[in-house]
């Protein structure tokens, strides 16, 4: 099984440690992982802003780079969701092979590898951030709106970590207000949503907020710092490789 590692642009630029953790984690599980160096962005920021035509060449490039792999794995639920849910539409009438086999790291570990143990330890209380596209596009957890059996793949994986205490905030899957350019176009609402979310995470008594999307974590971290609120942010991949 050959894995193409997709480290989305903003993770590459701002959170390289998340990429490194993902690489280490996949390698520690004995997988053949490759990182196509000419990768950049999935196109989501332009698409959500209303410029899909600018995203189309990026989707095409993505497909060319990643089509040869058995799975494409990304430590970013929102980007994986954009590839899987939106690329087929962007590339209608063209080759689109990679989209269907692109997964977020959490679902890859949970659904494909069926990981049941991890030799890692993280003796801290963490509050899980169920990011919107992870929940409602990829199905990483059951959306709170729906009458479906309750599950949460992120929590399933975190429970494999020794010493960890896992909790969820009130309103466990309400949006944190990032939304790409939404955060700058609707800056007041976005900041308010972020603040509300951070406060709910803090109210759990957790030391860390963790989730599968660095974008949400980035947004909440910026809001928390601006407001002088004390809580740390860490990507799920980093916890799953803690001490590895």
């Amino acid at each position, binding site marked *: 099984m050959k894995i193409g590692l997709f480290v989305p642009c903003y993770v590459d630029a701002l959170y390289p440690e998340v990429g490194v953790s993902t690489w280490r984690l996949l390698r520690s599980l004995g997988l053949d992982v490759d990182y196509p160096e000419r990768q950049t962005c999935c196109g989501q920021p332009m698409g959500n*802003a209303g410029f899909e035509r600018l995203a189309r060449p990026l989707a095409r490039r993505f497909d060319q780079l990643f089509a040869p792999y058995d799975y494409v794995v990304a430590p970013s639920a929102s980007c994986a969701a954009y590839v899987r849910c939106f690329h087929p539409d962007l590339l209608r009438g063209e080759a689109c092979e990679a989209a269907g086999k692109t997964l977020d790291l959490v679902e890859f570990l949970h659904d494909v590898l069926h990981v049941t143990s991890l030799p890692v330890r993280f003796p801290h209380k963490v509050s899980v951030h169920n990011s919107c596209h992870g929940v409602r596009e990829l199905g990483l957890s059951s959306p709170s709106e729906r009458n479906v059996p309750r599950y949460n793949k992120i929590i399933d994986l975190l429970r494999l970590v020794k010493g960890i205490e896992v909790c969820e905030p009130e309103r466990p899957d309400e949006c944190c207000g990032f939304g790409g350019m939404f955060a700058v176009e609707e800056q007041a609402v976005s900041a308010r949503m972020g603040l509300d979310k951070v406060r709910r995470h803090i109210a759990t008594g957790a030391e860390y907020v963790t989730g599968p999307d660095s974008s949400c974590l980035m947004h909440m971290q910026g809001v928390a710092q601006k407001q002088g609120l004390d809580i740390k942010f860490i990507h799920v991949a980093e916890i799953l490789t803690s001490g590895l």
Partner: protein
Amino acid sequence: MSTRHSRAAEAYLKDDAVASRHDQTFFAVRQKRDRMAAALPEWEDLREAASQIKKHTATHLADYLERFERNATRNGVSVHWAEDADEYNRIVADILAAHNVRKVVKSKSMLTEECHLNENLERQGITVVETDLGERILQMMKLAPSHIVMPALHVHREDIGACFRRLIPDFDEIARSYDRPHDDPNDPTFLTYVARMHLRQQFAEADAGMTGANFGIAETGDIVVCTNEGNADMSTSLPRLHIVSMGIEKLIPDYASMGVFQRFVARSGTGQETTVYTSHFRGPRPGGEMHIVLVDNGRSDILGDPEHWQTLKCMRCGACMNTCPVYRRSAGYSYTYFIPGPIGINLGMLRDCHLYHDNLSACSLCCSCDNVCPVKVDLSSQIYRWRQQLDDLGHASRMKRLMSKGMAALFNRPKLYTATLRFAPLINVLPSALVSNRLNPWTYGHTMLKFPRKSFHEQWKQLKNEEKK
């Protein structure tokens, strides 16, 4: 980079207490709705059935309308057809004039808001009294609805009390007849009593009652109206003339379909198992008249829109507003269309894309609305698709276009992208005044981003080499 929505929302959020209360009020309704959904094992099957019924009806609408008209006419009802708001207003005015109507009592109808019926009638000297308590409060305060189902929840009891004292002529007399102890002069139970007595006077005096329609049933010609207060029933039990205003998309085929929708309206909208009253009107009162005005006003054009026709499935339950994190934090008046929230963003664009495009910013694409919608309108996807059209419509934000183009230019050139990443950490050492200013919208709510010394791209080779050793 801002829109009329984002600026209004920013102003709204300045009052922290008001904004928090608004958010909590409507999230509480969302939670009640969740409990309703959880209590019915068949909930998701019902949503699918409701969606399919609406799709079926919308794509056979002409046949069903003819059938509905036949049955309603056989039941002794006069059926009228209005192409647009003007024709609708004219038809209603003519019916009222033919009966010398001076005062109309009216239950809640979004269609009449859409067509500005009240203003039109009042210009002709007809008194229109809204009878839904929330709508009546707004009418007296000269405010617009802030929500389609709970239109006045943003108004505070003190303001309602003051308004009643000022505008209800026999307020003191009514207050004296109230027999329950209350310390708060603006106690909601007391104010509701005052409104009850005031409105009962209106029902008794009115010459005509107007209602909307939650559903029209093609098979029988029934009009179904759901209320909690019973005001639609009061409006139609006392005056002899009943005029129904119905958007043509409110039609459903039969009683079997009605079973599905009756179970949904209240559960989705307000988190109740049912509205208190679900009334079926199949003809005029003895000695009275019943008229139904079927209104198109753009709906038949929406049917032809391949991307947005499914908005015709909407039954105006308001669930998408209650769950929308942006609506809850910006409230109804921040939107430029009279229907706010996810469905309002879409309906506004369908009404006039040049007038109402500002609302498109009011969505973080969290997709929660898609999951609460009882008829599965793909609200967030539709907002996403509208955004794709903004540039061609000439309404794209210049800043967003610039940013998107800049990003695309970078991402399409891997070498340039890699080089840029190498120099990105330089931003960290720039004076903060240069990056944290009003030209950088990110720093409005956030601290500035810190770039790491080395991107993943740069660390990658190192990782490979480590492994080789």
